Every structure is written in structure tokens, then in C-alpha cells.
């Protein structure tokens, strides 16, 4: 069951993390989230993963982190014997071309500039061969007759 696989989010800005998770949840994404504020804490978690291919659905990396950069984590991930199989999407508040190029060269599947919209993010994940399992759109989202759509930015 894919829904049991976790989405790892490494993002130092709490607000961005909250918005990201909130909007994906609202969109119907039902994967559990693993949120880390630093690269070090993320690696502590990664090191416990014996079979990440079975436990991790997606890794989302912010470029600017307090102790490291998303690029550095990506470099380590792409060299890791098992973690390199997990799809990675980069997040950044800037669309710096050098960062985009480096990320894609290092094997990131996509580079998303904040604020991005929930709907396209899910589409992107499908496109890159990492479809997120969605709950049927219901509940709070449809209460106001205003389903989560791509007008909504998230962090």
C-alpha cells in the first residue's frame, strides 16, 4: 500500500512546512509526513532506514537550510546506495538558474519555486513517476464549495 510510504520534508521555515503539509493534506494527499528542520536531523532519520525504497515515497528538499544546503543533501543522497532510489524534488524561494541546473544535474526530478500551488505539485509528482495517493476530494475541502485548487499557494 503506497499510502503507508512517508513524504520527507526538509524545510527550516516552520511556516513554509505547515503550509506545505496543510495544502497537500487538503488536496487529499494521505502519506505520512516526516518533517525535519535541519540536514543533521534528517540524516539521523535516514540512517535508520534499512529499506528506504519501501518506506519513503518522496524527499522534498529546501535549498537554504541552517546547517547545510539542499544541494549538499542531494549530493549525499544521490551517492547513497539505497536512498538514491527515492525521488527528490527541490524547493526554493528563488529560481536561481545555477541552483536549478545543479539540482537537476545531481538527479533531482524537479525544482519548484515557492510559492507553488498544491494542484500542480501533485501533477508534477505524477509526471515524474512518483504519484501521490490522494483521498477522494471531500470533507472540509468541499464544505465551502471551494475545493483546494491551484490558486492556493503553499510554502
Amino acid at each position, binding site marked *: 500500500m503506497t499510502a503507508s510510504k512517508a513524504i520527507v520534508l526538509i524545510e527550516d*521555515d516552520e*511556516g513554509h512546512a505547515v503550509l506545505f503539509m496543510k495544502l497537500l493534506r487538503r488536496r487529499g494527499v494521505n502519506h505520512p509526513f516526516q518533517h525535519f528542520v535541519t540536514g543533521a536531523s534528517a540524516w539521523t532519520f535516514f540512517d535508520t532506514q534499512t529499506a528506504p525504497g519501501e518506506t519513503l515515497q518522496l524527499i522534498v528538499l529546501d535549498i537554504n537550510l541552517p546547517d547545510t544546503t539542499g544541494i549538499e543533501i542531494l549530493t549525499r543522497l544521490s551517492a547513497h546506495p539505497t536512498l538514491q532510489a527515492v525521488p527528490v524534488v527541490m524547493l526554493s524561494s528563488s529560481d536561481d538558474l545555477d541552483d536549478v541546473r545543479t539540482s537537476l544535474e545531481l538527479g533531482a526530478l524537479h525544482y519548484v519555486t515557492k510559492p507553488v500551488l498544491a494542484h500542480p505539485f501533485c501533477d508534477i509528482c505524477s509526471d515524474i513517476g512518483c504519484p501521490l495517493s490522494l483521498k477522494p476530494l471531500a470533507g472540509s475541502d468541499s464544505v*465551502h464549495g471551494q475545493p483546494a485548487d491551484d490558486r*492556493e*499557494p503553499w*510554502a
Partner: protein
Amino acid sequence: MPSRASHDRPLGRDGKASILTASDAGMGDRAAPMDGRWEIGLSALVLTGLIVAMTLVIVLGAQSRRDLAQLREAEQVKFLATDFLMRQRTAESSQRGYLVTGNPRYLRGYNAVRTSLPLALTRLEAATSKEPAQAARLARIRSLFDLKRHDMFAAIEKEGADNRPQARSTIISESGFVQMVRIEKEIENVIEFENRIVSNTRTDYELTYFVSISVLVGILSLGVVTFFRIGKFVRSYNEYRSALTDSNRRLTSLVHARTAEIARVNEEIQRYGYIVGHDLRGPLINIIGFTSELQRAEAALEHQLLALKATAPASLDQDFVLAVEQDIPEAIRFIEASTHKMDRLIAAVLKLSREGRRSVVPEPINISAMIEDLVACHAQQIAASRCGVTIGTLPDLISDRLAVELVFGNLIENAVKYLDPHRPGRIEIVGRTEGDRNVYEVIDNGRGIAPADGERVFELFRRAGEPTVAGEGVGLAYVRNAIYRLDGTVTLESAQGIGTRFIISLPARLDAVEQPGLIAA
């Protein structure tokens, strides 16, 4: 990062001015100008001395030639005079012997010189004709000679005719003797005169010789002086050259150091702009995101309010209704407008910073083609504003294509954007070459810029006049930034209600090496 930037000031960290002075280069303490004047004076002196010496040598040479000729002439005259006298004596004694003895054998001498004697006199006359005093003497000698010859001849004739007593009377009368003495006296005078000439000429010649030797010694000493001066000159030239090499090396390293420093500071400023833009955006994204959350919550509230209005309108507090229906949506609207504007401004700063970090790559650019493309990009607005665009003959350029495109793109966009809606627009792009620079002008008949706004339009986020046209106030800041990076200048002339003229001056051939900011970019 900012604290580091303010700590390491780009130039003059050592407290010195950034201008390179002569003492920086180690050339300061040589009294070169004074030396130079001396050198020139001395060289002029040596040259004058040489010219004088040469003239003297020529004059003295001519003088000694003249002296030699004179000496030879004098000796010739003396020889001729002596020769004449000897012959005369031979004739005289031969004639006297004959007259005394009557023996014709004695006439042999007389006969021997009879024809050569007048010739000898003629030769002497010719040799002395130039000297009036000698010529006068010769005239006297000639008359004495004529007389003497006549007497001698007459006496010999008489002796030959056996008129001995009469012939002897000639000898006895002593007139022949007196004539002979007088001739001898005159000849002595002639020789004496020539001796005086010889003696004078000798003195002259010795003087000439002495002067010649002096001149030679002079030339030699000038040569020695010049030799030492050349030696000294070569030494000081070598010293100057090594000093120059040293100072060049120092200058080069100074330039390298400062270029590196400028590059570092430049990079820091660009990085600073990048970080500011980047880090400002983090909080902004939260505000945008959570405002959107608030909007969603507000929608829920409004939904609830509608339901309550339908079911229990009496229970509703008026303030609650006002807050949900007006205050909250208004606040959210303003927050949204502001955050979106801020996002655009930050994006502009980022773009500017990114443009500054980009390497400048000079390449040949067909400006006319580029302008035509850019005008085509704005064809729709141009048509909408009934605007005529004229493109003059534009000189081609070797520069950074993207930067030049950004410059002209923004200027043309500006011209189109700020046309006066009340009259037909006219935009003109002209160009010309000025030395090694190309000058382009983008001229419009738009609303113009107030004199007070002048240069401020080039500042980031500054906009002139009434903000009736959408924009962030970044276009001209991009233009100026790009122009500076291309080693160019941009100025504007404008009159409100008449139009604006942007004047761009760019190097016709941009040299990539001259861009210090690029080393780290």
C-alpha cells in the same frame, strides 16, 4: 555578510587614496628635471664645440695650404733671382775677361748665357708680378739690365772691331761696375723681400700648426668628455630602466590587488543583493500563504454568517457582521496587494543582482536587426497607440548581447509605455560613431520627464510623474546597471509634454578583460 562588507572597505584599506601616485611607483625622489636641463646644456656645448673645431680645422687647412703655396712661390722667386744674378755675373765676368785679354775664349761664358739671361729675367718678372713692391724692383732691374746688356754688347762689338781702347774705357769708366753693383743690390732686395715673406709665412704656419694641435687636443678632450658622458648616460639609463621596471611591477601588482579587491567587493554586493532578495522572500511567502489561509477561514465565516442570517438573524452582533463582511476582507485585500507588490519588487532586486553576477561575453551584434526584433515585440502596443517608429542607420557593436538587448528592450518599452495618449506617438532610434564609441539615441514624443525627476528615473523603484502606467520602476535601473557593466554611459534629455531622448554611449568593441567584476562572477 553585511558586517564583513562594511569592515573590508574596497579601496584604500591602508588609509591611502586609491589614486596611484608617482611615489607609489617609486619614481618620486629622482631630480630628473634638473639633471635633464644640465644634460641638454652640456650636449649643446659639446655640439657647439665640435662645430667650432670643425670650422677651425677647415679654415686652418685652407690657411696652411695658402701658406705652403706662398712659401713655394717665395722659394721660386729666390731661386729665379739667384739664377738670374749668377747668369748675369757669368756674362759680366766673361765679357770682362774678353775685354781684358782679347781672347775670344773668354766669351764662351757670355755666349752661353746670352740668350738664357733675358729669359731668366722674364721668368723672375713673371714670378714677382703679383707683388707690387717686387714688381717695382724688377722694373728697375729691367732697366739696369737693359743698360748693362747694351753696354756689354757694345763693348764686345768694339773689341770685336779692334776698337780696344774704346772697349776698355767701358771697363775703366766703372759704369759697368756700378750697374752691376746696383743690379746685385736690387736682386738682394728682391731676395730679402722674399726672405721676409718666408719668415712671416713660417711664423703664420707655426701659429696654424699650434692652433691645429690645440683644436685636435680640444676635439680629443671633447671625445673623452663625450665618452664619459655616454658611459654615465648609459649607467643612469640602466638605473632608470630598472627603476621603471620595478615601478611597473609594483603598479601591475597594485592594479592586480585592487582589481581583485574590486571584484571581491563587487561579488559581495551582488551576493548581498541576492541574499537580501532571497531571505526577504522567505517571510513573504509565509505572509502570502497564511493570508490565503485567512481568506479560506474568512470564507468559512462568511458561509456561517449567511446560514445564521437565514436562520437566526436576531442573534447576530452588528460588529461581527461588519467584521466578517467588510473589515476582514478589506484587510486581506490590502495585505494581498502589498505582498504581491513586495514579491515583484524582490523579484526585481533578484533579477538585478543576477544580471550583475552574469558574465559579460562580448560578441558582434547587428544592432539594426536587434532593434527591429525588439520593436516587433511591442508591435501590438505600438499599433494600439498609433505610434510611428523610425529606425535610422545604426552602427554595429561588439558587446554583450543580452545586456544590450535588455538596454534597448527597456528603453523601447519605456518609450511606448509613456507616450502621450492625446497625440500620435513617434519613436525614433538613431545611431552614430564617435571615435571608438558608438552613440545611440532613443527619442520619443511622449509625456516627458520633469526636470526635478531627471536622473532619479534611473534609480531602483523610482518612477517619475503620475503613476498612471503600471510598472515597478525597475526598467531604467536595469538599463543603467547594464550600461555600466558594458563600460558605457546613459543620459537623458527631456521636456515635459514634448518628449524624451535617451542617449547611450558604448565602446564599439568591448574588451572582456576590462571587466573586473567578472573574475568572481
